[in-house]
């Protein structure tokens, strides 16, 4: 009798998920389809699957996060993994250990999956080269945040029936946003028309060559948009360095009902969270009927389950 579990289907032919860069449309769609199944699992009372039973998942967050870390933790647990959270505050990183030394130490504990967030672009990839397990990028600097882009795409797909041909306006601090970069890449892969909207001080140089149309005012940037995706503006950037003040930013770039009216009547509003109400988004919109912000969180768990499951297919003995 063969007691080994049936081999997992290969949806995603890579050992790590480090970014959207290089992902094929087929791979992206495969992950989204897998996530659809995960939603069903998550909506049952018995939410457990056993794909990761006996596996160890370590969440290594060099940068504090509540939302993403707990989302990955839940995803791992629902797949049956043993999940450990490494909070940086308690770790030897604070004592001066390099990122590679930390990775090697953890690697010696033989985890199966490492979920890593780091404040420096490229740090997660560096770490992935040094460990023997699968690595998921949970955000590296202002480079990529692939699971956020996937969950956004899943949310859009479920509401609009598809992504191809939709006009998506990503608004706000594009320059400092890993969410924007991953979304620009993924939405292009999936055939959307992508726009970025923000003051020129928050638009990175050369962005127009990344497959987007660039706008510096909300009226033209949101005109006929199907999706309005707002980005968080960090507090230290809103006091005169990149934009002069909160009130001026809100006046010209904060999404309120008036600006949302420039978009299509059935346009949907998204935000990766955490929101600054009264800075980039008005409460009437954030809590309004066009908002998908709450649903994005639910999709986050499903997408992360899908990613973990897809990577599990490449684990030794899987």
């Amino acid at each position, binding site marked *: 009798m063969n007691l080994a579990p049936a081999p997992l289907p290969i949806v995603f032919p890579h050992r790590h998920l480090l970014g959207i860069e290089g992902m094929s449309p087929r791979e992206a769609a495969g992950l989204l389809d897998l996530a659809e199944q995960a939603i069903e699992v998550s909506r049952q009372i018995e939410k457990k699957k056993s794909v990761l039973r006996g596996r160890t998942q370590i969440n290594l967050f060099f940068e504090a996060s509540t939302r993403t870390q707990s989302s990955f933790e839940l995803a791992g647990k629902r797949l049956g993994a043993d999940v450990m959270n490494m909070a940086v505050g308690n770790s030897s990183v604070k004592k001066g250990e390099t990122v590679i030394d930390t990775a090697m130490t953890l690697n010696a504990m033989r985890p199966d999956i490492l979920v890593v967030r780091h404040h420096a672009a490229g740090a997660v990839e560096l770490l992935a080269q040094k460990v023997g397990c699968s690595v998921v990028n949970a955000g590296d600097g202002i480079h990529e945040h692939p699971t956020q882009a996937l969950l956004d795409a899943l949310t859009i797909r479920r509401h609009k029936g598809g992504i191809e041909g939709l006009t998506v306006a990503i608004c706000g601090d594009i320059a400092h946003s890993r969410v924007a970069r991953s979304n620009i890449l993924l939405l292009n892969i999936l055939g959307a028309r992508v726009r970025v909207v923000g*003051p*020129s*001080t928050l638009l990175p140089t050369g962005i127009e060559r990344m497959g987007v149309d660039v706008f*510096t*005012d909300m009226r033209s940037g949101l005109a006929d948009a199907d999706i309005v995706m707002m980005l968080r503006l960090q507090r230290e950037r809103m*006091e*005169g*360095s*990149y*934009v*002069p*003040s909160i*009130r*001026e930013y809100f*006046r*010209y770039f904060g999404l309120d009902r008036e600006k949302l009216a420039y978009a299509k009547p059935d346009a949907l509003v998204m935000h990766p969270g955490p929101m600054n109400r009264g800075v980039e988004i008005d409460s009437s919109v954030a809590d309004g009927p066009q908002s998908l912000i709450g649903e994005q969180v639910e999709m986050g768990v499903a997408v992360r389950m899908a990613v973990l499951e897809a990577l599990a297919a490449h684990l030794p003995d899987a």
Partner: protein
Amino acid sequence: MREGANGGGERPLVLENARVVDPSRNLDARGAVIVADRRIVAAGPEAARTTRPAGAEVIDCRGAIVAPGLVDMRVFVGEPGAEHRETFASAGQAAAAGGVTTIVTMPDTDPVIDDGALVDFIGRRARDETAIRVHPMAAITKGLKGREITEFGLLREAGAVGFTDGRRTVTNAAVMRRALTYARDFGALIMHNPADPDLVGSGVMNEGEVASRLGLAGIPKEAEIIVVERDVRLAALTRGRCHVAQVSCAESLEVVRRAKAAGIGITCGVSVNHLTLNENDIGPYRTFFKLAPPLRAEADRRAMIGGIADGTIDVIVSSHDPQDVDTKRQAFAEAADGAVGLETLLPAALRLFHSGEVEPLALFRALATRPAELLGLEVGRLAPGAPADMVIVDPDAPWVLDADALRSKSKNTPFEGARFSGRVLRTLVAGRTVFEARA
């Protein structure tokens, strides 16, 4: 600007027998100007052939020049904070007497103009106190500290026509880059004073032989040239618009000339002082000639005139900077910079016309038309439909400046006792006479 008591019901006005100078149409010809409902109906030879409107008031200009009222882009008024030096009322009277119909005020007041409410305050004060047009510029950086940019969008909505740190220079290139970048989104003009404060150091006049003989610390030209070169590069990088508030030496002018030829969004101004005076005028430590930037060598002055003649310099300003006795009756090194200039701007500028160096068209282009264009104002021209802001000036009338007769509250003029050819006969704002010389 105060509206006349007779409001919109004013009689039409005809200025006859005039030499009409309108740089917006390259027009310098004998003719007439017809005004109705505060705007120009016609100006030039064709206006002289048109039938006068019924009931029109007719003014015989006796061959005098009729030109667009001057637009002075760099005026320091003491209000708020230094009302003993100048108020909107006194500055407005001085401007009107000098043929200046629009002034642009600088934000280095107390408090600094870096908030929409203060821009609004200036607008209201100016409306109540003066008959000329007053447009404030707001600060580029909060508190003029050179660190955080101000609310360009909200300040523009409140009425700021541009952004400048006034006498200050934004030394941090990253801040300047961001200001130019952010301003571009709002189509806002950044006017920047180019003087590296570290190179200026304790300098009080142009660096060179004259300063060395006088025993005064010098200000090298490089303090200006380096900032102008930096700003040119930042304007190219950001594709923003940068206006150099004042150039004073040949080398900075050359930098601007090359940048313009390369299509970079840079423009520049010069003060009338730097077109008509040089460092030798300081003579025995005369503090009324202590200016910022300092008066330079004669070769620089001649280069400035060349810049006006060929259009490299866009704008002539008075750089009107009232200083009281307390700041000027001091040892040269300890005295404040600056000179009043609203009343002498046009007569002094006409010296270039009398010396045969600059034609009236080029002169009034730099005094009225270009500054209005840069600021996005509809004044500065006599084209049909334009607001009837005009100066009538007899370019040949001789007079001698008596500083005590100046309308400014402060009398710190470098032209005390100067002989001028060219007298403002009448100044009109929106067709209404706001100044008329005594016959």
